[in-house]
């Protein structure tokens, strides 16, 4: 479907699936990918927010949204099926879903850890594994195929409130490296983008069911804006197949 749209961007003809599409970072990535000419499948949990975003993007038939909880393997698989049914193939996966709950470790709530492990790590595993198949299929035909994982680095040593989140971010980075080695020889690129979140709020204990809320706190304080992350996603996907923009660290200029 994307092929017949008159787009001339660097990603024209590409089909991207974005997890966490309605999130702080995900929205910016969706905007950027549509601008770059890609067709996108937005995956999120909230149909209303997805619908609003779709209208906002105004990408016509290049934009599809599907409701799925990244922690449910079945729903992730349904999203894969929906994307393939609509666009025929998938060649870019962006996993930007994540929740962040912070507190001093000694005050941490195990249920919050479980939620973070579920969404940030397990969800990312589901998405990567489920979509690896269609992506490898593309790569096998000699066309670009990319997985972009959004990780995080913590630079603020004065506010050690995100022990578990940071541990998971480290795990994601390690995973990205391992996947790069596994999939690189098969022609698929795995990228990890690690923006620095200088989260510096007095109280970071939020209800886990409103992760976006936490991210809004992060938004105010962070010098690394989602637009910058989105620009890197596009860049990574648009580079020639033979090179992999493998690991990107995005730091605020002043503190770096």
């Amino acid at each position, binding site marked *: 479907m994307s092929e017949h749209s008159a787009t001339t961007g660097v990603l024209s003809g590409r089909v991207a699936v974005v997890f966490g599409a309605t999130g702080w970072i995900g929205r910016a990535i969706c905007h950027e990918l549509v601008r770059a000419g890609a067709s996108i499948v937005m995956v999120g949990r909230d149909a209303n927010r997805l619908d609003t975003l779709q209208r906002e993007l105004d990408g016509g038939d290049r934009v599809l949204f599907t409701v799925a909880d990244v922690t*449910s*393997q*079945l729903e992730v698989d349904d999203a894969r099926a929906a994307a393939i049914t609509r666009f025929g193939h998938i060649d870019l996966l962006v996993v930007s879903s994540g929740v962040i709950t912070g507190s001093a470790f000694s005050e941490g709530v195990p249920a919050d850890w479980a939620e973070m492990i579920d969404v940030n790590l397990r969800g990312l595993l589901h998405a990567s594994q*489920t979509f690896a198949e269609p992506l490898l299929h593309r790569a096998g035909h000699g066309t670009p195929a990319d997985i972009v994982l959004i990780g995080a680095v913590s630079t603020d040593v004065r506010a050690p409130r995100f022990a578990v989140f940071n541990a998971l971010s480290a795990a994601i980075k390690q995973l990205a490296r391992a996947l790069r080695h596994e999939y690189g020889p098969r022609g698929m690129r795995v990228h990890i983008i690690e923006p620095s979140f200088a989260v510096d709020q007095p109280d970071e204990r939020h209800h886990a069911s409103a992760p976006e809320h936490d991210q809004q706190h992060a938004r105010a304080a962070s010098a690394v804006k989602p637009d910058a992350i989105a620009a890197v996603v596009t860049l990574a996907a648009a580079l020639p197949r033979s090179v992999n923009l493998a690991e990107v660290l995005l730091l605020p200029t002043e503190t770096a």
Partner: protein
Amino acid sequence: MTNVAGSAPAIDSPSAARRDPISRLLRSPEALRGAVVLIAGTVVALIWANLPGDNYGSFWHLPLGLEFGGSRFELDLQHWVNDAVMAVFFAHVTLEVRRELELGELRDWRRASVPVIAAVAGLVIPALIYIGVTWGTDAVGGWGIVVSTDTAFVLGMLALIGRVMPPQLRIFLVTLAVADDVGALGVIAFAYTDHFNPLPLLIAVAGLAMIAVMRFAGVWRGPLYLLPSIVVWVGFFLSGVHATLAGVAIALLLPIFPTRFDDLRRAQDHVRAFQMSPTASYARTAKNSLARAVSINERAHRALTPYITWLILPIFALANAGVRITRESLVDAFTSRLTWGIIVGLVVGKIVAISVSTWIVTRVRPDALGPAVRMSHITGLSMLAGMGFTISLFVTELAFDDSVDVSHGQIGVIAATVLAATLGAVAFAVMSARERRRSPHRNRLVRALDPSRDPVLGDLSSAVVTVVEYGNYATPYSPAAGEMRREMEGRFGTEVAYAFRHLPLEQPLGRSAAIANEAAALQGRFWEMRDELIREAPIENERQIRRAAASAGLNLRRFERDWDDATGAQRVDEDLADAQAMHLHQAPTYFIDNIRYEGPIDADSVNAAVAAARNSVRDTTSANSTPAPRSSALGRW
């Protein structure tokens, strides 16, 4: 009539055989019980009728009536039995026919067609033979006597003499008997109605309308249907159409439906509420919601069955089989073409009709009988089918007014029934002997538990008892593997090893679910997948299977590849072939120490049987200090 679902287990265990005859009778299969009671009623009737004096005749002709104001309604005892009590019997037959039509054997025409064709032939050919024999006499009108097989008798006989026969034979016979009952009901309605007066039928119609309205309104309390039923009966009685057909008309209207899972869940919720606060009102809602989950047809059928078996059929036999047997009456009867018409019609007619029609069908469609049933079985069955007892005696009373004709008819029916039973018994004895020689261990597991192909819970090296289940995913109520594992570990520790094999039966996705289960085994998650499939059961679409796979934590992409490629199909098909070889037609079926378990299927009973097997192994081992034979057999694993 017996329970067609086949829930009457054959009691083969040695402990049952040691019991006294009465308790053996009470515990025997329902079909057998029915036949024994019916025979008892007949024998008592014959003795009573031949006692000196006309005690029998005068008793059954005692008038019994009701009087409202000035009007009086009176029938003699025999007519109360034949017109009123037998209405319940016919209602019961009709309930069974309807259940078979909508939920059972007759639903699937491809399978039901052979016995139905045989039944139709078995109605027509005996009647023609009877007419041929009695042609030119007044007795021709009695052709309806030879059309029907006595379902109770014939199922009882099969339970008695057909134990080693394939169970499919019983299904064939039930279908045949049920189809044949439909024919007999039609014959009674259309051929033996005299003095027809249509006006009172309006009363019956009003009563039926009431029942229809109650059914539509969802009334499910059985007793409320009683009053309109009496109205219908009175209407039929006054119209001259045989009053027992009121039972048929009513039974046709009673709702029937398969148990809905929503209803079951609701019932479970109510039972749970009752467990939490056991008050009288919760007890009532729990009871009502349980009853509501089963259609009134099935509840009525179940509620009526003991009355039919223990009361109505023996009373009918008592009231109708009492024929005076003297030298003269016998000589008279056996020189009458009427008597011979009945005997030849029932015995020869049924044999020829059923055997030949089935043979012709199998010529056209070689697989029509299925793999287990052979033509010789059908021939044996057709001999039994000449037992036309109940309905034949019933029609005798309808067809003849002259007491000499009635007596000839009764002697003919009894003689034909005895002759057919004898022929059938001999035929089955011969076949059983042959069958035993061919496969001496019919109830043994054909493929021993093999850890290289069977998923096993528990440790075979330490287990003293093995349990193999053949099951499927048709209901969510089979014990989950997790439960089974906990239960077994709790009760038996490491003494029991349990394995599961596939027996997908009629479910459209049954085989697919089994293959999915095998695909999960490739990821080391057989039991987890089985639990999730049980949770999803009944499996009605592929999405349920995928959801189960996701819940079992499988790699879905890999799973779907293996599932699509049917990698596990070989094991599933082997299991299925083994199950067919062992004539398993019911899931779950358990094998405890390689012997088929035949008791009721609930966790407690199965576990009790497992415990018994375990204890007997222990006894053997402790009795002999040398290794017991069973333990040495275990060495194979």
